[in-house]
């Protein structure tokens, strides 16, 4: 099971209407439907994922997220979710603003570029970090906008986005303990629960 599911689930009220941006095979929406009785739709651009969604009984709409979300009305959803895709968007800042326009709340997860392994990689080798989680070279990676927890929080402050909660999730027990000590150094994946400032 994906490590971020429990955290995301904890942010979602039962019976919410949910939009999952880049929903993959629909795993998260299925999970939320079972546990929180959400109604929801996923947007996805990959044809294999779309087929899996259809087979899984997940409502999926074929859509390229970089084409924007302007076709969706304000406040259409209770929660808009984007997991591990923000860093691949043309303009993550505009995507965030759009997510908060169409949803009352939003949840984003992204790989933390300030994780110690990434820092160590850059420090010792002097090259852009390549890991199991992010196996691409700098020139062919779809992840064009990496950021750290701190960077993200600065953006939220600049754009008047209210952080309801921010946390990190990690795969192994040891890294979990460490992450509790220093999120920006030991947290692999960041999970943020956001809303508009009033």
């Amino acid at each position, binding site marked *: 099971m994906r490590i971020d599911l429990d955290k995301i689930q904890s942010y979602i009220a039962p019976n919410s*209407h949910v939009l999952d941006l880049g929903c993959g095979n629909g795993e998260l929406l299925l999970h939320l439907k079972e546990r929180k009785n959400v*109604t929801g*739709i996923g947007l996805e651009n990959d*044809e294999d994922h*779309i*087929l899996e*969604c*259809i*087979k899984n*009984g997940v*409502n*999926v*709409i*074929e859509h390229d997220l970089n084409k924007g979300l302007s*076709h*969706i*009305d304000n406040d*259409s959803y209770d929660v808009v979710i984007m997991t591990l895709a923000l860093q691949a968007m043309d303009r993550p800042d505009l995507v965030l603003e759009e997510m908060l326009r169409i949803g009352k709340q939003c949840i984003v997860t992204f790989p933390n570029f300030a994780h110690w392994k990434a820092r160590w990689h850059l420090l010792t080798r002097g090259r852009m970090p390549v890991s199991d989680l992010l196996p691409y070279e700098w020139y062919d990676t779809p992840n064009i906008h990496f950021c750290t927890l701190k960077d993200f929080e600065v953006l939220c402050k600049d754009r008047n986005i209210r952080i309801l909660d921010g946390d990190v999730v990690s795969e192994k027990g040891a890294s979990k303990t460490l992450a509790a000590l220093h999120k920006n150094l030991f947290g692999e994946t960041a999970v943020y629960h956001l809303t508009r400032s009033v």
Partner: protein
Amino acid sequence: MSSEKPKKDQLANSVGIVSPQTMHFSEPLTLANGRILESYDIVYETYGTLNKAKDNGVLICHALSGHHHAAGLHSEDDKRPGWWDHYIGPGKPIDTNRFFVVCLNNLGGCHGSTGPASINPKTNEVWGSDFPMLRVRDWVESQKRLGDALEISQWAAVVGGSLGGMQAMRWSIEYPDKLRNCVVIASAMKLTAQNIAFNETARQAITADPAFNQGDYLVQDTLPKQGLSVARMIGHITYLSDDGMGQKFGRELRSGSFEQGIDEPLEFEIESYLRYQGSAFSKSFDANTYILMTRALDYFDLAREYGDDAVAAFKHATCDFFVVSFTSDWRFSPQRSHEIVNALTHAKKSVTYTEIESSFGHDAFLIPIQRYQRAFSAYMQRITISEEGDH
């Protein structure tokens, strides 16, 4: 005589030999335009078996030039199967091992159901120009009556491409409790001005043919073949894409030569192809039906009576929706399907949408395309139907 083998191949995964049936309706049908059709016939075919719960029926709504013969062969000597044979049959997306499939020829058609070429029982003469204009809702009403007569309690799905998709959408808001799924392929909630313009040009080609005789050509014993042929050629161009046409025909010559010093008439492959298509169509289709069907297309506007608010219209629906479009379709472009999907999501309906890469233009919905077949199959397979108890 032909050998046994090719026929077997043709019948593999096929519904096999089928025969159309006719149902007579004597209860008058009040039409959207106020006129009344006192009685009428509907020709239809069925494939598969209706289960005991009568909840595995799938209604196929046909497009502009379609008819009731959607799958299988009429005889072993039939050269071509029904128009949607790639998608209807055992193990195919509309799986006849699970579903009881009903496909009819719509009223106003020219393949056996009551239409402009039928005899008006009141006058004992061919209806011709006096046949009432029909709207999509009139078809839905007559389809509803056919479903009732076949004792379908609730359609597992109402399915249609193009003009057929319009019928499926109308079903979803007119009879929400009569269907569980609505499959809308390469369709639109209303035609654009450009789309109406193509239809009008086609109609003008027909009505300008002297043999048209204001629609009463059958009484006058003439046939507007030339006009209908041109109308079909216009339509056909718009059903293909520029790329698709280029790939298939390019600038290949059927006859003649460009060589200097030779003066003989040239014919491009595309000219010959269109002429052949137009000519074949003009011998098998009724000109008044063509006018009637294109008018129904033009008049259709799903949201008109809901204050032009498609979201308000779809709020009446309770079924799930599966919407499909094709990238190179410019007659019913993906943009039109986006509009449908947006209205459905805003109405908080359950909707799945996929946009299939294809160079076949609008015709793509009839053609076997692997990704389309897979997605369509996956969607149809997830429709629940009652298990057949012991016999």
